């Protein structure tokens, strides 16, 4: 299935090799750990064994005396020299430093850092640091944290509540009053994350001569350089982030701000490059890379025919000890708060609390995956209540193709879609009728078998205005992405992007669009990543945005290159531009194609023949383009309605699972997914993203959990305890594409990096609940670990 955006495409949407892959298969990837600078020193960190404790004293003398050790730094020393890391919300009572100061707030929080000749010696020195702690009772349960009046994670904040807001969009009370029925449902999304196979790492080098701090890091973060500058108190233009570092997976979490501040600080102190590569234990407990941990209490109002009218949602999110941008993961889902359904009104109470756990960071979808899980469980609950088929209730509530653009109550406008058709494609792909028979045969044989049905959205290309909804002083109405295109004097094309890449194939995407627009083979186009001082503004590859934003910027820059070529040709051929035609670099007279300027001639003129340039044109051959988020740029109206995301991709998921009743173990046997992300730029990349996200969602649904005990001790520091799916846990996925182009982007493309993950957890939960349905039990908490399912099954069977 290929996309058909209605124009004749040469490279976009065609099967083409992904240019990044060659360096990865030959061992030529350049990850931060692979970058070697002479005289580099190695850092190691000392984690706190206690979730909450006063630091009475730290004795570093023995560690400092160890041969090969260059420095031991504690939080108190560091805090004297740097600012707290800026938080997303303005919370003056909360001071977040890279190392704990006076008090530790979660098990695994870094208390001290050692710099030594190598990583082995650095860890030897950790053994010699003596910390005197006074352990305190930890705040562990988020509901307890919310109600707590004395025991605060941050005593100066005077509360554990980081954010508490209430929004009403539309006539919620009226819709509830008018509806035939209502239901309450509590669902819980467990603490998990993306857990890339590469931990976070950073190499920092302060150069006293240039007064520039060079940073190489496995980073994916929009505000990274700004945060570095504000924490270190440096001018922004003294920090140079090298964005050509390959990042070994991120999906949101590679934020590494405290790590990078530490490396930078130590490098300047020691006048040497300092590298801090998290080991797995530091990463899991103290890398600040956990995701949402959320309890939803939702009321739904609906009619007897299954039409859902309104939702009242209360979301309580456990942000852990240091909030960062975590509270905003409650705000982003406002962009698709009613899912792909025609729901008339919605109320949303959002609460973020601090606990003595590892801090939360953005995870794939920025809060959308838990929200989608909640929405789908609510839809299923309504269906169950009414005795309606889960497919039928979706068909009755899905927004219809003719209704686009469709504005939802909170103000986002869904750009385009054909949800019913995509759902039907998924049903066909799953051979749904056969699948029902297969399930029923399995049940007749005494097995627990279930089918999941989920339809979900993937907002893409967000403009960050959700921040304003939580903090009206944050008037941020753009989230732009820029690029530059240069044509050299030989006529070769180079695209310069900002931001690192962590597996999304941005270079391929960028080159494909440049090739398409300029009619050159993308394989001949060079793509480089500028550093943060030399590249145009970028907001990094979050929010399923790079195809939308960088793709459209690329098309814009290519258009300017073409315009320039046309102008040079028009001047030299003495013809109006309107009479000229551009074809693969050659500009010719429409009426007499023999009158033309070749690409080589145009490049020669641009670089060498100023006298042949139109008056006022600068020499050289380059163009820049900074793309603004389509539809963005506005503040919310007086009812807090605002468009947050421009593009909405859609997926339908139909997995088939079986549960072993004797052990509770779930096997995902089959999985069909249909997806519509508008025009697909590279089919292999999109397919990989869709399936990879889906697999990640299976992990969140069944296996993955950062577990804490009742005292706040962290239980999931290793890969033997935090369980990510191996190839054996992922079924043979069947996928099919559909293309409803977005009217807002250069080629009709939308986002695709998150969608699989945004639906799969709900889909697996839907399938598990279907499998449990003969027993009359349901489960509304992720992950659905086998011991929990077995207990439910056992209880139902022994009733």
């Amino acid at each position: 299935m290929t996309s058909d955006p209605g124009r004749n495409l040469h490279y976009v949407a065609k099967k083409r090799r992904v240019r990044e892959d060659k360096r990865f298969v030959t061992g030529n990837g350049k990850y931060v750990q692979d970058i070697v600078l002479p005289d580099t020193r190695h850092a190691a960190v000392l984690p706190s064994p206690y979730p909450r404790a006063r630091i009475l004293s730290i004795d570093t003398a023995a560690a400092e005396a160890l041969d090969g050790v260059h420095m031991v730094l504690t939080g108190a020393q560091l805090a004297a020299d740097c600012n707290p890391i800026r938080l997303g919300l303005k919370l003056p009572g909360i001071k977040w430093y890279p190392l704990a100061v006076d008090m530790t707030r979660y098990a695994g929080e870094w208390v001290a850092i050692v710099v030594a000749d190598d990583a082995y010696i650095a860890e030897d020195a950790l053994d010699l640091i003596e910390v005197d702690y006074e352990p305190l009772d930890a705040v562990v349960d988020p509901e307890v944290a919310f109600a707590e009046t004395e025991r605060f994670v941050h005593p100066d904040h005077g509360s554990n509540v980081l954010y508490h807001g209430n929004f009403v969009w539309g006539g919620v009370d009226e819709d509830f009053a008018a509806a035939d029925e209502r239901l309450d449902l509590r669902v819980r999304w467990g603490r998990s994350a993306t857990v890339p196979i590469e931990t976070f790492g950073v190499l920092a080098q302060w150069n006293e001569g240039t007064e520039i701090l060079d940073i190489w890091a496995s980073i994916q973060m929009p505000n990274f350089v700004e945060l570095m500058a504000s924490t270190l108190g440096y001018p922004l233009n003294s920090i140079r982030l090298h964005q050509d570092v390959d990042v070994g997976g991120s999906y949101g979490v590679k934020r590494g701000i405290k790590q990078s501040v530490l490396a930078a600080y130590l490098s300047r102190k020691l006048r040497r490059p300092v590298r801090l590569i998290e080991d797995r234990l530091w990463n899991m407990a103290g890398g600040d890379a956990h995701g949402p941990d959320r309890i939803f209490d939702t009321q739904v109002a609906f009619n007897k025919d299954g039409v859902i009218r309104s939702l009242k949602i209360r979301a309580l999110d456990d942000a852990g000890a240091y909030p960062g941008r975590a509270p905003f993961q409650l705000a982003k889902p406002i962009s698709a708060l009613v899912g792909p359904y025609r729901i008339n009104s919605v109320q949303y109470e959002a609460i973020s609390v601090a606990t003595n756990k590892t801090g939360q960071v953005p995870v794939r979808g920025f809060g959308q995956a838990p929200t989608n899980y909640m929405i789908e469980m609510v839809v299923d609950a309504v269906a169950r209540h009414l005795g309606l088929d889960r497919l039928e209730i979706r068909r009755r509530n899905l927004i219809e193709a003719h209704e686009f653009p469709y504005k939802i109550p909170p103000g986002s406008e869904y750009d385009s879609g054909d949800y019913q058709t995509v759902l039907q494609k998924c049903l066909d792909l799953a051979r749904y009728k056969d699948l029902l028979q297969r399930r029923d045969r399995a049940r007749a044989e005494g097995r627990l078998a279930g089918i999941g049905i989920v339809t979900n959205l993937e907002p893409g290309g967000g403009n960050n205005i959700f921040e304003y909804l939580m903090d009206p002083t944050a008037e941020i109405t753009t989230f732009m992405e820029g690029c530059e295109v240069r044509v050299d004097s030989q006529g070769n094309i180079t695209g310069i992007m900002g931001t690192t890449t962590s597996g999304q194939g941005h270079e391929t995407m960028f080159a494909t669009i440049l090739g398409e627009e300029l009619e050159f083979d993308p394989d001949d186009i060079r793509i480089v990543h500028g550093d943060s001082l030399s590249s145009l503004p970028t907001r990094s590859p979050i929010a399923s945005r790079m195809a939308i934003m960088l793709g459209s910027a690329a098309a814009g820059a290519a258009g300017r290159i073409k315009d320039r070529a046309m102008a040079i040709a028009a001047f030299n051929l003495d013809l109006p531009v309107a009479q000229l035609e551009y074809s693969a670099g050659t500009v010719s007279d429409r009426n007499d194609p023999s009158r033309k300027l070749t690409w080589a001639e145009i490049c020669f003129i641009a670089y060498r023949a100023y006298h042949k340039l139109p008056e006022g044109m600068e020499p050289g051959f380059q163009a820049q383009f900074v793309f603004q988020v389509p539809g963005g740029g506005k503040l919310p109206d007086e009812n807090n309605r605002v468009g947050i995301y421009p593009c909405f991709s859609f997926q339908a998921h139909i997995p088939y699972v079986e549960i072993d009743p004797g052990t509770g173990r779930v096997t995902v046997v089959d999985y069909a997914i249909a997806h519509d992300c508008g025009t697909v730029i590279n089919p292999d990349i999109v397919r990989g993203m869709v399936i990879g996200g889906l697999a990640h969602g299976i992990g969140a649904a069944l296996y993955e959990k950062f577990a804490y005990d009742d005292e706040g001790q962290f239980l999931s520091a290793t890969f033997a305890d935090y369980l990510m799916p191996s190839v054996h846990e992922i079924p043979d996925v069947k996928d099919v594409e559909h293309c409803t182009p977005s009217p807002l982007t250069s080629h009709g493309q939308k986002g695709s990096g998150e969608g699989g993950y945004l639906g799969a957890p709900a889909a697996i939960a839907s399938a598990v609940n279907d499998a449990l349905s003969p027993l009359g039990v349901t489960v509304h908490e992720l992950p659905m670990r086998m011991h929990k399912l077995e207990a439910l099954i056992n209880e139902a069977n022994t009733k």
Partner: protein
Amino acid sequence: MKPAKFDYVRAESIDQIVDALDKGDGEAIVLAGGQTLMPMLAMRLARPATVIDINNVTDLSGIGIVGDELVIMACTRQAEALASPLVREHAPLLAEAIALVGHQQTRNRGTVGGSLSHADPASEIPLAALALDASVSLRSVAGTRRVQLADYFLGPMMTARADNEVLVSVHFPIMSGGAGSAFHEVSERRGDFAVVAAAAIIEVDGAGICTAAALAIGGADATPRRIAALEDKLQGAKLDGALIRSVLPEIALAVAPGDDQHAGAAYRLRVATNLAERALLEAFDGARA
């Protein structure tokens, strides 16, 4: 995750191992396949003064029949044992268990003796070996002794092996050709340590009377456990599914499971019973007179 410093001894013979252990005075540790010890060293959970590498001791590797026993030398790789026709023929239960241990990369290094020395209460090789009535040969400068596995496992990661002893070989009584055996486990993911596991062996005579029965349960107590009372009830009985199910309550009387984040005691007990039922029924099914 970098190990603390240690002295490294590359042993070339069993004598060198036991000498080094003796000199080590409790501070020396044997490195076999390293699949468990290396992470413990990296996490500094183990901080031996001396690491004695036994991988180059050729006498410690190999599989053979000695008398009425199948003997697997301690440093034999799990992959080699898995591929061994001798193991498949004389201890098929062990082969079935090893297939569930880790992944090919870990089985290519991990050893049979290493797994028994580590003695994780949920791991597969100790459980199968216990069901098979295996014994281990332990050697020190003072000599060699043979210990039945029933007396060898003392607690989680604790065995009767003294600090100055090295596990030299594992001895499996050859299974009767007619015996049926089965190994069932549940783990969150394939290749993980089992949460709970059951290993069963059943022999029957021509009249369908059980002449020998073994059931071992892993992951439901501090060590793998044989369920002797259940075995006693099966022996001499005319077996069928109903009878096998009727003896399962003996398991609950024999094991004392604990809780952890992966499963609670109640789960472990119920699932142990369920897996035992499956293993016993399959073993019975495979048994022939």
